[in-house]
């Protein structure tokens, strides 16, 4: 097992010098943005991304990935205690977590969520260690046509990110694609949509877009809604462990959740909400007494909470091996890689093993820290919900503006972040989902350049995509997904009637 040798070296890297501290800072900040309603992992990673500028790449990614999976833990706390999801992946946890809290079992809900998250995270890491090198060794087979086909599959699955309205979701997705066109045409070198602005020739700065759309807009929303609201009463947290008869069903739900999370993590175009919904509906479907769900069923907390953490770990596989982001948060991590001069892709694991395995090892450590933070220290984090927004929001905004400036030492980027923040605010008001914008922005660039490269390779022959086994299979999958969703979509219309309105 070559991997284990590397992993041991990875632990050496992860435990050395400041990396342990960065891991701690990362997961703490992750818990922090997770606990805070509104700020989620995407905004959290985008927020700290520019501040990692002077750091070693491995330290930077250790910290940023810590935020990402740390937020998955933190989101649970507010969902259970005050029925407000700390981040979107914990939305489902409200359904049964809050009822449990009202029955005086908040501790158990948080306990089982923490244990599930830990197990899910560990299973995903184990898969990453076993499967990652295998995928990486095959990844060179992924040429431009295969990348194109994979992104098409991702885009066909975007429907899961769309939220309530398909039309609004599609508008958001197309908006993201349009933003991806700004800048230089990768094939001809022509400048598009730059309006004579030299700064726009390289395209829209990803960090400004992500921080504006996700971070600033959320701050505006929170400021508008909650600035003066009184902090909610927090139920007491005690008895973290489930009852003896609950262990069996909980563990089974945790294992199923891990499987769902890992599988979905491999697919681009998803996000951490989808595995939680899927896990919840499966738990409900196979339960002996489905009526318990929504009234404090422990499986309804254990399954989804596990699924989102397993997803978070597994989503790193396509990032490390192919350089393709599965979800908006992973897209921010991809930005971090590029900023630090690392190219995620087939050669990353071979050329920078100390980097890859250092990050993986740090995630074992980070998950262990998070387990401690969430079991004995859960009470402390719960107090965070009491810090007044009046203090919190201006501080976050200062960091964001500093961050946006520091990417290119350019005020233009700060302005752009403000514009996208305002835009994001109005999009939220009009109930446009923001996830698709960010994801199609990133995938759109890969889509366009891989299409252009493929067509050059095929000498302009579109059928070339179907003459290569991997790209043909992927494209057929994409066509099937679209066909199936149109079929079910037209069937659903009859039942739900005018759900659009």
């Amino acid at each position: 097992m070559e991997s284990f040798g590397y992993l041991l070296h990875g632990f050496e890297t992860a435990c050395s010098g400041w990396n342990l501290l960065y891991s701690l800072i990362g997961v703490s900040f992750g818990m922090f943005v997770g606990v805070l309603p509104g700020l989620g992992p995407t905004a959290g990673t985008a927020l700290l991304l520019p501040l990692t500028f002077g750091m070693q790449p491995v330290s930077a990614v250790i910290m940023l990935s810590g935020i990402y999976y740390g937020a998955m833990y933190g989101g649970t706390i507010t969902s259970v205690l005050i029925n407000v999801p700390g981040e979107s992946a914990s939305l489902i946890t409200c359904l049964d977590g809050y009822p449990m809290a009202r029955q005086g079992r908040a501790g158990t809900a948080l306990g089982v969520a923490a244990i599930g998250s830990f197990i899910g995270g560990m299973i995903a890491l184990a898969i990453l260690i076993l499967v990652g090198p295998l995928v990486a060794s095959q990844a060179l087979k992924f040429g431009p046509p295969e990348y194109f086909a994979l992104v098409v599959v991702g885009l066909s699955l975007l429907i899961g990110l769309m939220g309530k309205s398909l039309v609004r979701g599609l508008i958001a997705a197309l908006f993201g694609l349009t933003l991806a066109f700004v800048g230089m045409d990768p094939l001809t070198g022509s400048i598009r949509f730059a309006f004579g602005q030299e700064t726009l020739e390289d395209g829209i700065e990803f960090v400004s877009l992500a921080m504006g759309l996700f971070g600033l807009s959320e701050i505006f929303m929170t400021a508008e809604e909650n600035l003066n609201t009184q902090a909610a009463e927090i139920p007491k947290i005690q008895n973290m462990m489930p009852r003896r008869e609950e262990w069996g069903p909980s563990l089974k739900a945790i294992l199923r959740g891990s499987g769902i999370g890992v599988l979905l993590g491999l697919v681009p175009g998803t996000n951490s909400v989808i595995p939680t919904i899927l896990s919840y509906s499966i738990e409900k479907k196979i339960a002996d007494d489905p009526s318990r769900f929504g009234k404090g069923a422990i499986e309804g907390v254990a399954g989804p909470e596990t699924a989102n953490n397993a997803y978070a770990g597994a989503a790193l596989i396509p990032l490390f091996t192919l350089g393709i982001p599965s979800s908006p948060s992973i897209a921010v991590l991809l930005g971090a890689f590029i900023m630090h001069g690392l190219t995620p892709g087939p050669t990353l694991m071979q050329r920078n093993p100390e980097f890859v395995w250092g990050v993986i090892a740090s995630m074992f450590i980070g998950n262990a820290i998070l387990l401690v933070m969430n079991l004995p220290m859960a009470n402390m984090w719960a107090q965070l919900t009491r810090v007044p927004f009046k203090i919190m929001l201006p501080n976050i905004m200062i960091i964001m503006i500093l961050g946006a400036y520091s990417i290119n030492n350019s005020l233009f980027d700060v302005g752009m972040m403000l514009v996208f923040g305002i835009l994001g605010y109005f999009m939220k008001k009009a109930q446009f989902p923001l996830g698709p914008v960010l994801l199609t922005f990133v995938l759109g660039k890969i889509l366009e350049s891989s299409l252009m490269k493929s067509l050059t390779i095929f000498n302009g022959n579109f059928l070339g995509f179907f003459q290569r086994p991997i790209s043909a299979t992927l494209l057929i999958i994409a066509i099937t997904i679209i066909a199936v969703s149109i079929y079910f979509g037209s069937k659903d219309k009859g039942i739900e009637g005018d759900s659009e309105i």
Partner: protein
Amino acid sequence: METTAKKMLCMLLGSFLLGIVLTGCGGQAPAAKKPAAESNYPNKPITLIVPYSAGGSSDVGARLAAKRLEKELGQPVVVENVTGAAGWIGWTKMAKSKPDGYTLSLLNMTFITSYLNPENKRDMNLDSLTLLANHVWDVTAWAVRPDSPYKNIKELMEYVKANPGKVTVATSGVYTQHHIALIALEKLGYKMRAVHTTGVSEALTTAMGGHVDIVSMGAGDIRNAAKEGTMRPLVVLDKQRSKFLPDVPTLFESAGLDVNAFALRGFASPGNTDPAAVKRLEAAFKKILADPEHIAEMEKMGLEIHYMDSKDYKAFMKDVETNLKKTMGW
């Protein structure tokens, strides 16, 4: 009790945020202030603008030179990465600064490509700057997969001539020296298809996976890939062999084609820079670029130093401009 907990938490939070800010700033060295005793240049810190992001090979090369320049001039040389528009934003910032010799920038040959291309509508050219010294000469080479049917460059070029547009070449982007060389070859009757990737590493992996026939990269990068055994060097696009690939023939010697491709990176300051400062900088560059230690550290990165003084550098860049105009029809 309640309020103390709250206060503690706020303090904790505050110090946490402060910590993050400090961590972020840790990478930038503070510019030391020295008393301005004599009026001689240089008597205060010098800024070297690198128009690319930190960590790339251009940036590292410039930083290595900056470190030595600092020692030579006895003043801090602060490297500032001003990115955007393929370098143009950094060059604009340099050109618009005071011509007192305290603001320099790394200058890439792509500066010329950028303003020659009429689509870009640039408002500067070589005459807007003071060229100080050339630093790096990165000659282009081609490589194929070890199992490629193309055994030598002569056969390949004969095949290309007989089958125009059949062979694909991965470049690190549109209008790079790699792309322009292919345009020049096409004019001579050797048509190949350029597959423009987003950078050197993507070009390399695309070729390693067998999705294109040839990869065009700097000779230093090709040397590294050949060492790993992933690629087989085929040809150097120059009249002389590269010192990184001494066994690899040139396009001129084996196919008789006079097409060369290279990247050229040097240092420049705003137009009409104070002559005293230029003189001091020229002498400093001449000294540090001949330093065997610096030559060795650059070679390790796969970069070859090719010093040219202010006059030669300008003349050479003018030649590059003329050739580009001819090849591209701009």
